[in-house]
């Protein structure tokens, strides 16, 4: 069975560390590791070399946090591969922007392309999000109205277990992955390799200077 959670494990564990936690330390589940078993959006496949034979659909469960955020089964496009074992997935979506004349909405690029002299002093230039083909496609994967409207990273953590989890095991797993501040049991049983460093993502300018905010009339 496939269990999908929101974010990367808040305990700092990576996929190998989470697997160690689930199978060895807290013994919450037995994960599927058969190198012939591959889970995909369309079902579970038995893989022989480069050929996969479909065995049918499998059960899956998305966490309530994911559902609340707007990530449903439809978020995963056709042919999405879940593999087996444990995975901490990362998707980056970059929002492109363009410069427009605030009063008319015309893009500065289009105005320049007319070939006529352009008095930049008369324009009030504003940077606005661009609805590119890629962004429109990406937005469709979210429940309507829930896709964040700026550049972002979405982490998802999923595990494929051999059996359905009892409720106590599911809740503990949910806590380990989604709840900040969760304390791992038997911390001494983890190795250095079980954790991944966490850092800041600098996808766009981090902030505006006080002078720039004043110029823009922002508080």
């Amino acid at each position, binding site marked *: 069975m496939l269990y999908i959670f929101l974010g990367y494990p808040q305990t700092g564990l990576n996929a*190998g560390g989470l*697997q160690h936690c689930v199978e060895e330390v807290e013994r919450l589940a037995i994960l599927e590791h058969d190198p012939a078993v591959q889970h995909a959006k369309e079902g579970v496949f038995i893989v022989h070399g480069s050929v996969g034979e479909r065995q049918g659909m499998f059960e899956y469960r998305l966490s309530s946090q994911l559902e609340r955020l707007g990530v449903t089964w439809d978020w995963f496009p056709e042919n999405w*591969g879940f*593999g087996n*074992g444990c995975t901490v997935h*990362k998707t980056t979506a970059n929002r492109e922007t363009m410069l427009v004349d605030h009063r008319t909405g015309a893009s500065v690029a289009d105005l320049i392309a007319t070939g006529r002299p352009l008095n930049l002093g008369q324009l009030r230039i504003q940077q606005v999000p661009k609805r590119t083909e890629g962004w429109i496609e990406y937005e469709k994967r979210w429940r309507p109205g829930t896709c*964040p409207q700026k550049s972002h990273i979405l982490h998802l953590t999923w595990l494929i277990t051999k059996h359905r989890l009892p409720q106590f095991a599911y809740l503990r797993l949910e806590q380990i992955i989604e709840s900040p501040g969760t304390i791992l049991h038997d911390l001494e049983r983890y190795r250095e390799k079980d954790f991944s460093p966490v850092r800041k993502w600098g996808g766009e300018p981090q902030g505006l200077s006080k002078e720039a905010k004043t110029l823009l009339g922002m508080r």
Partner: protein
Amino acid sequence: MAEVKPAGVEFDTTVPVTQASADAAAAGVAAIPARRDHRHGMPTLAAAPGITFAGGNTTEATTTSTTAVDLLSVASLSIGATIPFLLHMVGRKSAGAAAAGGFGLKANTTIVGEATLNNDVIMRRFGAVDRIETGDGWAAAPSRVAGYLRSGSGYSTIYSATTWQEKTAVALAPDVDWVTVTITDLVVRAISGDALITIGADELHIYSLAVA
């Protein structure tokens, strides 16, 4: 000029509330007028859990999957068929078993280079030795035009903590022709040769190029 208080009207001196997220509207009960220029406090917008915006926390993508899995992706791309692009990423393998690992590539929903223990897609495959290995791969995909759809090449070096290193030319689409529609998603797939090995990938950057 400041507005003048009407004769006989006493104003409420209570500080306006700071609304909480999802507060419902209410008519109120106090029979005392408020000043028309009063300002309510606003709650700080909390980031949705699990979503990272610029300046927020992030980490690498990792897997123990022994069959190909979608590990790391860049969505919202708009790379037209005639636009070449460059791709760069870093990858690593943990110790844990004497087994290999590798990467693959999917364009939209088409797996153009499958993650196997033998393919060198984007990056050279990791060695079947029980040790930590790290490396990176650079590759370029040309314009995707009919007759030239099995293409894309690059270079990768894998290092271990000792002096060992392996340098290899890598492919992007060794298995299937490129799609000729606009690429909106590029997905790095991965496979681990043993569930005791963690495969990691990060810093996938795509640069589309101007064409003459």
